[in-house]
């Protein structure tokens, strides 16, 4: 009966064996997503309650603002909206022109994207990997590997989907790499996470490559995960090192990795623009 008899020893050995089996299967085979989903539903109340104070304060902040504040905000947003609308008009015509040219060239067509906003849950995960939880999951059609953006750039990708929440790996996680290209000249490279939220390493750039401080990096779409053309980072350091095969190039992510509370989930789809193009062509006939 007492905890360290022979039975306890056997139980201990069994538990160790079971843990090792679990880890191996989880790491190598990914059969355990269902187990994780089930347990994650059980622990969801913990995550919800822990993040409640922060969501409650932000709710109160939104609901207890003075009229003047709201008016000022409203005016600001109106101006911004008008500005963005004006830019958008140009963008739509350019996009359609781009589609038409691509069709002439028989090139593959650019995909349009469906988006959904998600909120970060204020829970702390492992401090040595850059992951966050968002409040959207299987229920909202989220899938593994799905790209996540925030208002200013690429944020990360979904690594685990549970029924109600999912966890997102930031692009600065040491285990994350993102195919990017320099917006100015199309030079392709890979942006690897460093573990610091303000630095990305650009890998395998030759010493004589045409890359400068201040260059914008956008997703190249080559990895097949991220759609092409989203802003990622700005080159901050270029140090050619003749004694090494590659230069040391660092970039600073554009997304507000430390302060964003809302992020965008992106689905790659082939709908809106094509329909628009078809409509316009039909109208032209």
């Amino acid at each position, binding site marked *: 009966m007492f905890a360290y008899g022979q039975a306890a020893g056997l139980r201990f050995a069994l538990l160790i064996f079971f843990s090792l089996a679990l880890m191996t299967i*989880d790491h190598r085979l990914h059969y355990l997503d269902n187990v994780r989903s089930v347990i994650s539903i059980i622990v969801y109340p913990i995550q919800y309650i822990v993040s409640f104070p922060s969501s409650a304060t932000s709710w109160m902040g939104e609901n207890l603002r003075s009229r003047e504040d709201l008016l000022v905000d409203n005016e600001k947003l109106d101006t911004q909206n008008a500005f963005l609308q004006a830019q958008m008009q140009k963008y739509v015509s350019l996009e359609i022109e781009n589609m038409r040219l691509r069709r002439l060239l028989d090139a593959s067509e650019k995909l349009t994207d469906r988006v959904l906003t998600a909120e970060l849950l204020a829970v702390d995960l492992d401090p040595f990997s850059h992951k966050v939880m968002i409040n959207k999951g299987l229920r909202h059609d989220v899938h593994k590997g799905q790209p996540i953006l925030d208002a200013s750039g690429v944020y990360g990708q979904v690594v685990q989907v549970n029924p109600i929440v999912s966890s997102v790996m930031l692009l600065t996680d040491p285990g994350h790499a993102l195919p990017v290209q320099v917006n100015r000249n199309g030079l392709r490279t890979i942006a690897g996470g460093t573990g610091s939220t303000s630095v990305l390493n650009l890998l395998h750039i030759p010493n004589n490559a045409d890359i400068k401080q201040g260059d914008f990096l956008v997703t190249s779409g080559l990895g097949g995960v991220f759609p092409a053309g989203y802003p990622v980072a700005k080159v901050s350091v270029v140090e050619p090192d003749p004694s090494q095969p590659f230069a040391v190039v660092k970039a600073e992510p554009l997304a507000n990795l*430390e302060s964003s509370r809302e992020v965008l989930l992106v689905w790659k789809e082939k709908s809106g623009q094509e329909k628009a193009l078809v409509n316009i062509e039909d109208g032209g006939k």
Partner: protein
Amino acid sequence: MAEKKKQGSNVIFLTLLAALFLTVLPLPEWLRPFRPEWATLVVIYWCLALPVRVNIGVAWVMGLTVDVLTGTLLGQHALAMAIVAFFTVRLHKQIRVYPLWQQSLSVFTLVALGQLLVVWIRGIAGDSPDSWLYWGPSLTSAIVWPVVFVFLRDIRRKFRVA
């Protein structure tokens, strides 16, 4: 006897639950590496106080919950916590009678053992932390141990968990 044995299961459950809350409670960025391993501390306490009821089995389940809660490899905290509980139960008669500061030293060793196992597993899985701050929790766990111990002991006495 059987009646007496079951007394206070709810209390044990609630303290373990509280530890899970503290495990994911948001902290300022600079403080995050120094979060004590609350879950391990509470498991160690109950293993010392009631090794018959709380031992490797409970520790394993607790570890698995921590794995899901913090999104780590399924089973790594479970393994570490089961092994920590195993040694705690083995040594509980000695550790129980130590003065608090010596208990803190034992807790430091136990939590560091757990962290060592986790860092091995992470190394094998190819995601090892590259900073000495990784060991912060061992230190802070030892520092907060006297408080945790006195707090949980009072709770145990108040609710007559036996």
